[in-house]
């Protein structure tokens, strides 16, 4: 997935560039004992209508469910079972196992023992990589040596250009960061330090840009950190 992102720079300019997921460098393939290639596959086993939960909801009486399982095979959808799933989007099923197209998003707060304290409705959490308002340069430069000891980067995207003007923009930014041997925090909000959300209802991340240049080439990487390196049990 190549997502657009509005990237601010130290001179108050911004450009809508492309985030390229940096794939894992290790390439794995599989074969069987005879040396024939083997591939990983996902196939449909049950749908929202044939899943056990849906059947329990439809036939609450166990005897009736047993009878209909023997006579009608409701757990078996011949048009769907065994079909490759292909690329899938995220969806939700309700308590009865039926598709829920408009779930109500709620925040549940817990105490230290894990007991529920309160619930409050929350709105949609939109992706904010390409906001309508121009993003703000946070100005928070953190030495590279220090930032790797503060947070753990669980995602990395290479920021690439869509045209030559964007390349110049990104090259300048990468050079600026390389000269300072630092990463800059990028994010949402008025100060440019808020969390970044890559997909709707996705997890919020802290974003950091790291830049390097080498002759005519540049490498600008957006690192996303879901959490901080904190040991809560450490003695003060």
């Amino acid at each position, binding site marked *: *997935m*190549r*997502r657009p992102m509005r990237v601010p720079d130290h001179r108050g300019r911004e450009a809508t560039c*492309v985030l390229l997921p*940096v*794939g*894992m*460098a290790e*390439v*794995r*393939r*599989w*074969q069987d*004992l005879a040396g024939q*290639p083997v591939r*990983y596959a*996902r*196939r*449909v086993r*049950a749908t*929202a209508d044939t*899943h056990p939960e*849906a059947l329990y909801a439809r036939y609450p009486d166990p005897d009736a469910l047993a009878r209909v399982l023997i006579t009608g095979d409701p757990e078996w959808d011949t048009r*769907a079972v065994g079909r490759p799933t292909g690329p*899938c*989007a*995220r*969806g939700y*099923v*309700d308590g009865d196992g039926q598709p829920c197209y408009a*779930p*109500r998003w709620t*925040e*549940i707060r*817990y105490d230290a023992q894990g007991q529920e304290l309160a619930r409050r409705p*929350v709105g949609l959490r939109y992706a904010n990589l390409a906001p309508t308002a121009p993003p703000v340069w946070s100005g928070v430069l953190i030495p*590279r*040596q220090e930032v790797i000891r503060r*947070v753990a*980067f*669980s*995602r990395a995207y*290479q920021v*690439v*250009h869509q045209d030559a003007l964007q*390349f110049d923009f990104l090259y300048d930014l990468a050079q600026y960061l390389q000269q300072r041997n630092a990463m800059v925090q990028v994010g*949402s909000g008025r100060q440019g330090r808020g969390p970044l*959300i890559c997909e709707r*209802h996705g*997890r*919020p*991340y802290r974003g950091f840009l*790291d830049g390097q240049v080498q002759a005519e*080439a*540049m490498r600008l990487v957006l690192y996303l950190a879901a*959490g901080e*390196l904190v*040991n*809560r*049990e450490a003695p003060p």
Partner: protein
Amino acid sequence: MPFVLEVDYHDARSVLLLTPGDRVSPRRSRRVALDAQGRPCRTAWQTWDGMAVPPGGVAQGYEGPAGTTVPRAEVVATDAAGHPLRLLPATTSRPQRLEGPVPVDELLAHVITKVYIVTAHQLDSALRQSLLQGDCYRVAFRPRASTSAPPAFLLANASGLFLLQAAPCRLEWVTQAQVVLADGNDDDADDPAWEDWLMEGTAMLEEESS
């Protein structure tokens, strides 16, 4: 379950107890999707033609060229050239050699897949001093036998010692001629490239974003 990692640094041995970072404390708040009756929804898959596939509704396995199922025990991992990979033993039962200090760029050429909080059962003083100065070390760490050998990095901050299990990623130099176009702004699609890791601070970010 905590792991024990023994490392050798300049002929001195240190014994480290590793606790998975995401199990240290529970999150204090959670965002959930509720249905019309107030019951929690569960994440499902939606196929390209709109069919909802609930959790547990997908069978996963390996298939041969003709579409026949291949049992997991008969599947052999190979490299890109098709050479079978050797099964490497777990590293938890024997001492490992620390390499480094490694440059920052080496760690930044990886993404972190797992964080362990380190309790030093026995820590060499020279190693402790080096870690407190901000040095970072690479060590082989496989909790169980595996065909892949991703490195782990040992580092420290004011809060304590950490071991970061990492996976190498493919960073490339980009020139002006390498133009890439965006796929479009599909906010609903998850990024299949990442298996996210959760740890301390996530709840705080959740609060900031709501």
